[in-house]
């Protein structure tokens, strides 16, 4: 695993790791898969592409891991994909990257990766459709100036185009922007565009800073974030800023998610997730997160948990003599797997994305809850 365990997006890498470790620890406690324990060898890339490439080379050529798992981020994954192509003869597969971008869902790199989550195109399309349906047709985009941001930007543009609309405006920020930085210039650019809604394609620190500065500037239209943002980390930052500034920065927010709410305890998988997170209290990867407070539950760690659960299913079906070359065949045979994502998960030879499920959430009483009625944002 190569992910951000340090820097402005470390919450994503650490929580994804923790969620997976909660499940793997339980599996290992019960004897592992065909008697073999599962171990995550995690390297920090700080959400930087070059570091991700170096980590991947190390994992593949020096550590000789069995497979690549839980990579975080589009700019990192898009740079790693050509490596997998280069070493295709070694049959490495990237399982469940934490990104909804297209390159690892389509040729030529699609066959080298297996995705569980829905794509950014699906998330942004859903957001655009919902907002346009309630009369908010002037859609602006605030996005990270890299492959991730572009992926979401394309999703919004295509969704608007399908409805005969164009983007009202756009503003960007640099990857790694901290919450303490000012995003007034981006706010000013988007204010000029007079949007009905803003869709953010970013990471939690920058997106929280943007929401704070937008609200301060009087830009109070709904702001939507996609699943990568790290909803709980975003909310925690906004709540701390709200307390400091004595104003509420958590209203008019809509976050799309690719996993169900961890508050939805009626779902067996959510109960299992919560129980194992409590039982094993997974820590951040060794050497990281010393000044990070782990979240009890989060959408990101739930996604890590589901990734681990599905991976164990794959490894179980692979048999007692695991062979990398057979991984894709085994994945393609997975159909109608009840993972607890609202609909069965399945793959085929032509489809390397297991789930299309999107869940929309908003903040109520200091936590993210499902959106049940979009009309409250009707224009």
């Amino acid at each position, binding site marked *: 695993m190569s992910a951000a365990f340090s820097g402005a997006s470390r919450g994503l890498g650490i929580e994804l790791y923790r969620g997976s470790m909660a499940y793997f620890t339980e599996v290992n406690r019960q004897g592992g898969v065909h008697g073999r324990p599962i171990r995550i060898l995690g390297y920090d890339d700080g959400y930087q*592409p070059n570091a991700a490439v170096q980590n991947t080379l190390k994992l593949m050529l020096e550590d000789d891991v069995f497979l690549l798992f839980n990579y975080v981020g*589009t*700019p990192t994954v*898009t*740079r790693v994909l050509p490596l997998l192509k280069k070493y295709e003869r070694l049959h490495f597969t990237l399982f469940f990257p934490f990104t909804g*971008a*297209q*390159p690892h869902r*389509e040729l030529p790199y699609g066959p080298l990766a297996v995705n569980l989550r829905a794509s950014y195109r699906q998330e942004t399309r859903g957001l655009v459709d919902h907002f346009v349906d309630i009369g908010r047709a002037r859609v602006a985009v605030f996005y990270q*100036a*890299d*492959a*991730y*941001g*572009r*992926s979401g*930007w*394309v999703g919004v543009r295509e969704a608007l185009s399908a409805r005969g609309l164009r983007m009202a405006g*756009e*503003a*960007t*920020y*640099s990857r790694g922007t901290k919450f303490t930085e000012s*995003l007034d*210039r*981006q706010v000013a*650019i988007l204010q000029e565009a007079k949007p009905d809604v803003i869709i953010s394609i970013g990471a939690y620190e920058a997106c929280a800073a943007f929401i704070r500065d937008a609200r301060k500037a009087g830009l109070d239209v709904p702001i939507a974030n996609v699943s990568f943002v790290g909803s709980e980390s975003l909310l925690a930052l906004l709540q701390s800023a709200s307390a400091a500034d004595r104003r509420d920065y958590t209203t008019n927010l809509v976050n799309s998610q690719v996993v169900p709410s961890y508050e939805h305890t009626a779902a067996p998988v959510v109960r299992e997730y919560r129980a194992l997170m409590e039982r094993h209290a997974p820590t951040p990867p060794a050497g990281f997160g010393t000044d990070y407070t782990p979240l009890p539950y989060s959408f990101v760690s739930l996604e890590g948990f589901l990734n681990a659960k599905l991976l164990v299913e794959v490894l179980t079906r692979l048999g007692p003599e695991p062979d990398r070359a057979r991984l894709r065949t085994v994945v393609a045979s997975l159909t109608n797997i009840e993972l607890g994502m609202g609909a069965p998960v399945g793959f085929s030879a032509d489809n390397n994305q297991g789930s299309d499920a999107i869940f929309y959430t908003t903040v109520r009483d200091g936590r993210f809850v499902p959106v049940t009625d979009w009309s409250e944002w009707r224009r």
Partner: protein
Amino acid sequence: MRIARLFQKTMFGIFLLFGIIALSTSALCVYTVDRQLSTEYVANSRTIAQTIANSSLDIILNRDLSTLQSLIDQFRELQGIRYIYIVDEHGDWLAHTFVPGIPKEILEGDRSPDGTVERRLPGFGEFVEVASPILDGIAGSVHVGMDKGLIALKIQTAIGQQIYLISIIFIVSIVGAYFLVNLAAHPITQLGGYTRMLAAPDAPTTLTADDARRLLERDDEVGQLARIARHLAHRAETPDSRP
């Protein structure tokens, strides 16, 4: 006192000479570095724009703009390249590297698919922008902005290094000149003292008998002048020698 003036004139000459050298070489340096760097950067930018244009065709046709963004982000890391943007054949944006947004001057300005333009973008700086068409322009164009500020910085660095070198040479030259001027001035001072001693033998002097003897034994022009002075003094003192 005469020696000090002589030294001052020599020093002034050295200052003047080095001033002229410093100014002329700096001017030449500015001209040469500016011209060479500008040519080199424009050529590099054109190569980069063409490389992106050639390698992005498949990506654009497959509508995989996140990979396209990843591609231009890598080129953006090259020194001197401040921005890159790609538009399609209709002028619609496909990818760019601007933060916090696309400057109005570019949004509303000329985005010719070929050629070179100079741009002044408030808040960003001054740039030379090179464009290259994708598939002869029918699939769009790539635009690469080169930072002119970097060229100015390189010129300043080159001039700074040159002035540093000239300053060292100047200091060494001053020390050397001081030594050489003293070497030449010392016997002249002695000659002056000797002639004053001949003119007024009773007047106080710092010149010793040994100094006077060594002066008269010198085989250079100073020694000759001392001997001539002594000869003239003797003739002046001998009545038979008067005409």
